[in-house]
């Protein structure tokens, strides 16, 4: 099928709302940039407390994305390909964290994994392991909130992927696991990459579930969003600088990934 040559320019009914959308999304960021006390940026960037929070944020968001990939891609496959009954109910259930206020998610995690929680009390009693107020708790809280973004993206990619390739693989004698590894995964790689980016970004900005379930302690559980929130209580200017640091680092990471890896996958 040959694509028709595109007309130059954007139709006005699309252009106007698109410009409004850009303004709506970028003006608050511009506000941050305009009001930022730039003189403080240097000292803040080099302050050990900020470095600590930034490192913790990057490490935990990356770990949460890894965990989401390991668990979320198979889940997306089940949702997209399985023919079992109750699939739509399952899909609705796994996307609950999307609509749940994150603070409520944090309390829910306590009820399961907390010291008094259903699983947590057993972990504590049997192995002496307590999860709340540790870096592990940060990763769990972020995964809980961010994984649905990955699952939804990957499921969409799987449904959009041409099933004939998988059928062809099956007729050539490949079992479903081999087909998944050799055909399906490469086919939906761009969707997985997009989902992982969405998941990572959501995990990086996670606040509510983290501060509830993991608490807030510098070096262990204080991620950048928590540091920003607490700075806002006392010194709004410092909070603006911290927000910019988080913004710059996340945008830089995403651009770098896009150049290095995403663009190749998308092509």
């Amino acid at each position, binding site marked *: *099928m040959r694509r028709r040559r595109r007309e130059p320019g954007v139709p006005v009914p699309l252009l106007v709302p698109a410009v409004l959308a850009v303004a709506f999304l970028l003006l608050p960021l511009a506000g941050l940039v305009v009001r930022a006390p730039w003189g403080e940026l240097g000292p803040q960037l080099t302050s050990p407390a900020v470095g600590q929070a930034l490192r913790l944020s990057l490490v935990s968001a990356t770990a949460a994305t890894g965990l989401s990939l390991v668990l979320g891609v198979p889940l997306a496959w089940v*949702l*997209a390909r399985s023919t079992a009954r109750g699939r*739509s109910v399952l*899909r*609705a*259930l796994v*996307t*609950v964290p*999307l*609509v*749940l*206020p994150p603070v*409520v998610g944090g*309390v829910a995690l*306590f*009820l399961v994994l*907390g*010291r*008094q929680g259903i699983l947590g009390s057993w972990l504590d009693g049997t192995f002496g392991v*307590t999860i*709340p*107020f540790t870096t592990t708790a940060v990763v769990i809280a972020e995964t809980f909130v961010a994984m649905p973004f990955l699952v*939804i993206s990957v*499921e*969409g990619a799987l*449904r*959009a*992927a*041409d099933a004939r390739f998988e059928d062809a693989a099956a007729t050539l004698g490949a079992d479903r696991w081999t087909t998944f590894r050799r055909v399906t995964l490469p086919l939906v790689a761009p969707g997985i990459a997009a989902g992982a980016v969405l998941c990572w970004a959501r995990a990086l900005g996670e606040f509510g579930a983290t*501060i*509830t379930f*993991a*608490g*807030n*302690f*510098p070096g262990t*559980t*204080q991620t950048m969003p*928590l540091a920003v*929130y*607490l*700075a806002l*209580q*006392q010194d*709004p200017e410092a909070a603006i600088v911290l927000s910019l640091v988080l913004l710059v680092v996340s945008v830089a990471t995403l651009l770098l990934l896009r150049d290095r890896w995403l663009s190749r996958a998308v092509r």
Partner: protein
Amino acid sequence: MSTRAVPLVLPLATALVLTGCGGSADDATAAPATTDAEGPTGTLTVFAAASLTDVFTDLGEQLEADAPGLDVQFNFAGSSALATQVTQGAPADVFASANQPQMDVVTDAGLADGEPQVFAANVLQIAVPAGNPAGVTGLADLAREELTIAVCAPQVPCGAAAEDVFAAAGVPPAPDTLEEDVRAALTKVELGEVDAALVYTTDVTSAGDAVEGIDVPEAEEAVNDYPIAPLAEAPNPEAAAAFVELVLSEEGQQALADAGFRTP
């Protein structure tokens, strides 16, 4: 080109049970003692520290009963967030802060109408889960590494007060988490996830049976005064004055004392 099947996300409506205010005692307000021929009308907007939620809600209902035609709206939040909102031009009539510095933010901006008045005070207390599983007896236990301890972050009023108390007692605390506000610290005690937290006496009172309070003698070093002021740009100054008067009246002071506040 393949047709794209967009997965339908079916968000489950999550019913969140918000804590409503308890039933008001209607008969208690049957005979208003001092009311003008016609009380204030319209809408009164009160910005008040989160710790005042229960008492002020009751007082607001009382004022509404005394002045038919008046609708009292509250915005309960952390004092620093409220002070920021007031200085950013939020249309509030009254501001009640949980400490002096946040009221100073508002007065320094020239936004308070007259001198703020202290109407209550709050002291810190150790909160432990019912039954006190870790056997906490005093401030010194909050330095034990093996216990899970929550203290407010130094950026918020209860955390600033906690720092003063620990300094006065010469106890280096060993917290596992620095909570963003006092209610978050209390919640963790209620859930049994921490062995002890340093919160306000009024929070322990409001938590009921789920939480036990342990007095801290050193807390006298850091008593938090609660100032209240009508705002200079109040849309409803008459109602603002009536509310401040009610809070400072004998009735208002009794309600505060019942909730665990100290009254001047």
